[in-house]
Every structure is written in C-alpha cells, then in structure tokens.
C-alpha cells in the first residue's frame, strides 16, 4: 500500500505534503464505493472536496474548531479537517450530498427551512450532519442540544433557530 518517497528535514507543511508518501484508499461515500490515491498527509476534507468533487462539505477554520467540515464516518460525526484520510480506509462516509434531495428533503433540512436556521448558509452542511448525529444520540432536553451542537459555530448567529429546528425533529 505504501510508496515511499524521501522526506524533508525541516520544512513547511506544504513541503511535507509535496514529499509525503502516497496511499491508496477505498471507502464508501454516500453509499457509493470509491477508490482514491492520495498523499499520506491528506485530510479527509481535502479528499472529499478536491479529489471527489463533493464541495458541499465546507472548509472553515481548517483547525477543528468551527465544525463546517463535519461529516459522518461509520455513523459518528467527525471534523473532516482533523481526520487523516488514510485513517478512513474502508470507512462508510456520509456528506451533505448524501442527505435528502431538493424535492425530498431530510426532515432536519425541512425543519431548518421552517425555523429559518441559517442566513449565509456556509455552516449549514456541517450543522445538518452534526444535528443528524445528535438526533441519533437522543438528546433529552434543549440544554443537551445546545451542548451537543457546541462544536458547530455559526457566524451569522442563527443558534436559537438551529436549536429550535433540531428540537422540533427530536420531538422536544
């Protein structure tokens, strides 16, 4: 699986990427099998956006703080900017492209629209994926929704409406 290339002594992350070894990966993305070759240092987010062309997953801070890049990996929500793609060989990944369609929205997507749970929409794919995983975790009250969504920032400040949308689908 490994193709070794010489490594740099001390350089920038970009240098390290340029000289990183290549790994071959196969995973399922939104139910579709896919095989890619990528550098060992590649993040899952970059593979999803740049190699698979699925740009619904957003890059915000790229440091694991904002949650815009949230995807589901084997049912668990992860920040794909902090997930080394090589670690996800064989995984089952779901991105926003795998959630609902324009004429058949996921119930949480429909609730986001009803509750006006977004303004610019940049954080929304991450909010939806995170919210879907949170619903599966069965939050017991509004406080649990607020805590459970604390890894997803919304610069527009739509938090009350995001919480209301999730609460409605959770039946709270």
């Amino acid at each position, binding site marked *: 699986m*490994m193709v*070794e290339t010489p*490594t*740099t002594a*001390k*350089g*920038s*992350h970009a240098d*390290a990427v340029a*000289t*990183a*070894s290549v*790994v071959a990966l196969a995973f399922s993305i939104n139910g579709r099998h896919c095989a890619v070759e990528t550098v*060992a*240092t590649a*993040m899952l987010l970059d593979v999803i956006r740049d190699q698979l062309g699925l740009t619904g997953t957003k890059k915000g801070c*790229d*440091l*694991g*703080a904002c*949650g815009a890049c*949230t995807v589901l990996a084997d049912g*668990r*929500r*992860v*920040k794909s900017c*902090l*997930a*080394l793609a*090589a*670690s996800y060989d064989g995984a089952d990944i779901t991105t926003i492209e795998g959630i609902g369609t324009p004429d058949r929205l996921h119930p949480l997507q429909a609730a986001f629209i009803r509750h006006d749970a977004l303004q610019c929409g940049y954080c929304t794919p991450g909010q939806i994926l*995170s919210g879907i*995983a*949170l619903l599966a*975790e069965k939050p017991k009250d509004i406080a649990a929704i607020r*805590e*459970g969504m*604390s*890894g*997803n920032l919304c610069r527009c400040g739509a938090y009350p409406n995001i919480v209301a949308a999730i609460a409605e689908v959770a039946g709270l």
Partner: protein
Amino acid sequence: MRYEAPESVEKACQLLADDVGHARILAGGTDLLVQIKTDVLDPSLLIDIKKIQELREINTGSGGFRIGAAVTGAELKEHDGLRAAWPGIVEAANLIGSTQVQGRATLGGNLCNGSPAADSVPALIAAGAKVVIAGPNGRRELPVEDIMVGVRKLALTKGELIVSFIVPPRPKQGGDAYLRFIPRTEMDIAVVGCGVSLQLDADGTCTFARLALGAVAERPLLVGDAAKALIGSKLDAKAVDVAAAAASAACRPIDDKRGTKAFRIKVAAVLARRTIQIALDRAHGKTGTTH
C-alpha cells in the same frame, strides 16, 4: 512524511525505535494534526495506532478497567460500567472539545500531547490509574502522574508508547469527580482543573483521598498535602479548608491569556472544595452528572 498503520504493539514499537527522524504516534490526531498543519511539528513518520486492537478496547477484569490508549472519549462515555464506577474520568475526557472531537480524541493522546491543562489527566491521577508502556525491552508500568515531566516532555524513552491505562476497581463507598474552570461554557482549555477521588468507611470517615490539579504548573500535580488533610477526617468544613489551602499552596502557575498566577492560585482552592463535595456526594451514593 510516511504514514504507517501497524496492527500490533510490537510492530509500532519497532517503527518508533527504527525511525531516525522524528516519528509521532497518531491516535485521534486532534492535537497532532493541528500542530502539523500550523507547522509546529513536521514528523518524518506518523504511526497510526488505531488499527491495534489492544489499544481500542476497554476490558473489565477483577473489578477494575484496562482502557486502551486509543479508546476515544465518546467510547468511554458509552461504557456503562466505566461511567458508573469512575464518572469523574469519563466527564473529564468528555470536556475535551466538541462531540466531533470526542469521537476521535483519546486518553493516550491527551496525556502524550504533554499539555499541563489536559483535562483527563488530573482525573486519572486522582483515580490512581497506572499506565502500561510498551517498548523495545518489553513492558513496564508507571503511575499516570509520573508520565508528564514538563510541558510537552514525557518520561518515555525512544521506541516506547502507551498501550493502556489501568484503572483500579471503584472503592466501596468511594467517589470521584473532575471540575475545571473556563470562562466559556464549552470548547475551551482549562484555566485550572481539579480531580478528586475519595473513600469513606462505614461511619463516614475518609480513609483514602487523592487530589490532582491541572493547568497550575508545568505538569499536572498530585497534591499529597490535600489528601493528608482529608484522610482521617469526616470531610468537615475544617478539613476541606485545609485541603483547599493545600491545593492553592501547591500551585506554581504562569500568567497567560487564560488567567493570571494569582487567579489560578485562588481558583485552585475553590475548585478543590467543589470537586471534593461532588466526590463526597458520589461516595454517599448520590448519582448525577456535573456538567
């Protein structure tokens, strides 16, 4: 940079020992990958330990727990037995980052990242947990408090890695707790953290106590004088006062953007009191979470 994902502890140790550059262990990656992206670190080799089964399991035997170094915070929370026995450890681990981060972040990574503010470490120290270390010369054990020797400095030698944490059985009439102070409600780094574990005898006298502090020195501290003040007492106001003062006295913090020295020293005593109270309530069989 090379990436390897060995399936045995021995192979991982071999890769570490053979590397002539600067290899790093990749567990959850929630600290390491940020450090690589921001050019703080440039490892020659990443050794992903998540394919090693032994490191991914929580085993219960003889009443205690053996927690693999690569078990995530989310998996700890889902383990009913561990949550019932050591709620302080589970809650501490689940204060680290958001739910998305808890799905990846591990106890082994939190310790080996070498931050004095690591939330899970004071809780593990208070519980009297030990660490199993594997290396080229076999395995050895060290108490958790002996692993971190300074900021980003560990008592591990070349080729060694942490395999698991051994957490003792919950003592009868025992309880543990962890609290931290942060200016926000979520997603922050401890200004001060405090872990406490207590045991009472039949008439409510404290027979065993451990108190550990985080973010108040170059490494997490086990505060022996605080335990001394509690053991033999009924955990009355006077004993708790002495223990809280001992917690403050043990601090040797720095001033930084999260808090001043004086503030940290003061907060250590406040957190010590509150954490002792929660551990005491739990020792009396009261349940409930702190967060």
